């Protein structure tokens, strides 16, 4: 039994219906909204599993369903649905993680008055995300892409009464919009060049070789057309996936409720950029064979990914907010994925995307569990000693931490990271990204160890932490399930890379090459050991005591804690530029345009004066005279209205007598 592509639309339609239900129920209908969201998501998950079954039967085929949206003159704008293993795996992952996070949310949002709205937004987000995944048209993908952005905006700003949340929502929306502008330009360019935006259309789609050949010509600036378009589309991915230099919104987005952080800003939405690049990989790779171009699109992708991976890991080391550490960790991991695509192994990127989705959702939900239990205390310096109080959370969090750190063999993260390192190692263009990635691995293990040690070991360092207790099953059960998945997922990759083969049957198997496993284990051990040495052995005793690393490099730590000053940089450059423009515009407005407008207004006033004189002297006199006659007549007639009902009745009766006399006389004649 499998889900044919014709019925693929059901997957996003189900959560969309839940969103509609959520929108239409009154505020008191939170149980209904949550129930609808969870039920439809469970249904969507089942359908996604069926779709996966159908896709795996024909791993190499791209099943499509294309239809015309509307006609524009002679051309018609066509949209489509696509079912291939990439779509199917993403669908299963998104619906599964969403389902668990929805269930977790029922516990986390229990006390919130607007919970029904929350579930409505979550369902809307899930619908948009699933629509993005199954799109067979760059246009449909873009529409869903923007919808996802909208849902993200709504959910980050869900607690809009907090100024920080409102500002973060705005920041996320505007920052991603900058990237989306590039995306839109690339999309328009592509439409102009190819006449269609369908990915696969029986040989005419933009990702098929016939079309790709059209784009190999060189532009005046020396780039190939496909490079330019690909880089423009990559701008969108940079914004959405939080890549350098547009990563600044992602840590701030942690102001939203933790399930939102888990779902959108760790597991699914930020992966949309990676998914997009993986989806249009043929386009990105179209210029690979051209030798006379200054830069290939994928090279840019690789370097951006490497920079992001290293930078994210570095900043994460110096952060103190539990969610921000995880957020920078996400930035870093997304950098790894981009790096993998850039070095030519999109399969490794998607593999890491899937594994990362599970353990990052797990880590965020674990963080949410901690935050919920500790009464919204997020500073790891003020937490501590939670291990005996929250056993389930600790155990699952530790599994997630080990998966993220890449602890060997048993945890899925190890295998996906291994694949990326392997791909980067084999890249001919440059070895710098590989070394960045290696350094990132050590740092990742280090900061995750720091996080676990600070939060769960030692003694509680605040009242909130000391009063923490384990959460309800609605919150712990999803944790357990996600933890189990984080471990089980490694089975898919080991010992033979089944998943990689399913995703891209054409890729040659590299599983036999285990040359990097040993160094990788050493690196991870190094990170873990360093982390334990600094933080685990002698746990922090007071919230105010300085970080051990501050003693060694206070300047560097301060810079890192300040997130390398990106926000200040943007404020100083982009912000100042825009405020300069605003001042200029205000100046123009006040002195130039306003003067012109006032001059025109004065002219109008003058002509009004003239015509008024004209009116009063000429027309009005005539009308006044006419009206006076009318009024006088009216007054004269109204004299007949005496207000004397008897008089009326008398007149009526006399009229009746006269009428009857007339009739009688007339009858007699």
């Amino acid at each position, binding site marked *: 039994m499998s889900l044919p592509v014709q019925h693929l639309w059901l997957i996003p339609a189900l959560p969309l219906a839940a969103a509609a239900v959520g929108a239409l129920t009154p505020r008191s209908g939170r149980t209904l909204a949550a129930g609808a969201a969870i039920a439809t998501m469970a249904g969507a998950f089942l359908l996604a599993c069926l779709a996966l079954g159908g896709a795996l039967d024909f791993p190499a085929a791209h099943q499509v369903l294309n239809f015309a949206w509307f006609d524009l003159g002679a051309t018609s704008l066509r949209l489509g649905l696509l079912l291939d293993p990439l779509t199917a795996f993403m669908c299963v992952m998104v619906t599964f993680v969403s389902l668990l996070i929805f269930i977790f949310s029922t516990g986390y949002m229990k006390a919130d008055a607007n919970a029904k709205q929350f579930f409505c937004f979550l369902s809307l987000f899930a619908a948009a995300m699933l629509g993005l995944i199954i799109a067979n048209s760059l246009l449909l993908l873009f529409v869903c892409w923007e919808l996802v952005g909208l849902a993200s905006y709504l959910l980050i700003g869900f607690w809009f009464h907090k100024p920080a949340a409102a500002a973060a929502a705005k920041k996320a929306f505007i920052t991603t919009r900058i990237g989306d502008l590039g995306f839109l330009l690339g999309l328009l360019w592509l439409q102009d060049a190819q006449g269609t935006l369908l990915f696969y259309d029986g040989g005419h789609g933009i990702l098929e070789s016939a079309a790709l050949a059209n784009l190999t010509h060189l532009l005046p600036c020396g780039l190939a057309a496909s490079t330019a378009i690909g880089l423009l589309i990559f701008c969108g991915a940079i914004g959405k996936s939080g890549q350098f230099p547009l990563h600044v919104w992602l840590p701030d987005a942690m102001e939203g409720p933790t399930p939102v952080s888990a779902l959108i800003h760790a597991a699914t939405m930020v992966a949309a950029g990676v998914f997009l690049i993986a989806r249009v990989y043929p386009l990105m790779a179209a210029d690979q064979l051209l030798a006379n171009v200054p830069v290939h699109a994928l090279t840019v992708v690789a370097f951006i990914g490497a920079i992001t991976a290293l930078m994210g890991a570095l900043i994460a080391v110096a952060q103190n907010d539990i969610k921000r550490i995880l957020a920078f960790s996400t930035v870093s991991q997304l950098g790894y994925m981009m790096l993998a695509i850039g070095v030519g192994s999109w399969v490794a990127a998607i593999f890491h995307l899937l594994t990362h989705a599970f353990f990052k959702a797990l880590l965020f939900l674990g963080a949410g569990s901690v935050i919920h239990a500790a009464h919204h205390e997020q500073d790891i310096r003020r937490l501590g000693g939670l291990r005996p109080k929250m056993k389930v959370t600790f155990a699952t969090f530790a599994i997630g931490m080990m998966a993220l750190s890449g602890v060997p063999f048993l945890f899925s993260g190890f295998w996906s990271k291994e694949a990326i390192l392997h791909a980067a190692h084999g890249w001919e263009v440059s070895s710098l990204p590989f070394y960045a990635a290696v350094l990132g691995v050590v740092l990742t293990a280090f900061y995750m160890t720091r996080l676990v040690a600070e939060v769960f070991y030692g003694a509680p360092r605040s009242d909130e932490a000391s009063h923490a207790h384990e959460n309800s099953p609605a919150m712990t059960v999803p944790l357990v399930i996600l933890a189990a998945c984080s471990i089980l997922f490694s089975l898919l990759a080991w010992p033979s890379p089944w998943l990689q083969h399913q995703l891209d049957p054409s890729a040659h198997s590299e599983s036999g090459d285990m040359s990097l496993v040993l160094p990788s284990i050493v690196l991870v051990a190094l990170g873990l050991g360093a982390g334990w040495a600094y933080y685990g052995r002698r746990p922090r005793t007071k919230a105010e005591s300085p970080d051990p690393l501050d003693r060694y490099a206070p300047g560097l730590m301060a810079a890192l804690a300040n997130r390398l000053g990106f926000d200040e940089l943007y404020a100083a450059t982009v912000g100042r530029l825009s405020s300069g423009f605003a001042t200029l515009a205000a100046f123009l407005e006040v002195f130039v345009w306003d003067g012109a407008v006032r001059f025109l207004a004065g002219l109008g006033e003058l002509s009004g004066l003239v015509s008024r004189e004209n009116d009063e002297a000429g027309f009005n006199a005539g009308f006044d005279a006419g009206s006076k006659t009318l009024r006088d007549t009216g007054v004269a007639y109204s004299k007949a209205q005496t207000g004397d009902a*008897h008089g009326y009745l*008398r007149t009526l*009766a*006399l009229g*009746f*007598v006269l009428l*009857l*006399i007339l009739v*009688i006389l007339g009858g007699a004649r």
Partner: protein
Amino acid sequence: MILALIIIALVILGASAAAMLSRNLIHSALLLVVAWAGIAAFYLWAGAEFVAFAQALIYVGAVSMIVLFAVLLTRQGATAAPVEFDSWRRAVLGLMVAGGVMGVMFGAIMGSPLDGRIASPTPTITVKQLGLLLMGPYAPALLIVGVLLTVALLGAIVIAAVDKSEETP
């Protein structure tokens, strides 16, 4: 038969004329009830049994009650509720106009060739016949009257109800 008619006519006219002339409003209303009862008797005399009972039920039972309530509610001070002929002019004018109407109608009645058809025994119409007529050819009119009565009921309540907001001390 004619004697009965004349007696009934005298009762009706006497009661109604006295009602219109009485200075006591309550007496006016009660005398009018007598006139209405007389009219019901006229209907009985003419054989319209159902209409007679309806007239008695509606006028003697209901309209009279409304009138009496209205009189009591609009009474001012003096218990005798005296009503004066506030203007001889109006009375004279009224009588003159009514006389004119009377003259014209009298002329019309006497001048019409009505003598030709002298009827037959008193016709009767049973309740069943009436019901069939009302539910058959006259059903639309019945519906409209029902709507009218409902509207009148609501309208009377709305008009007469005390408006709380503008109630003056």
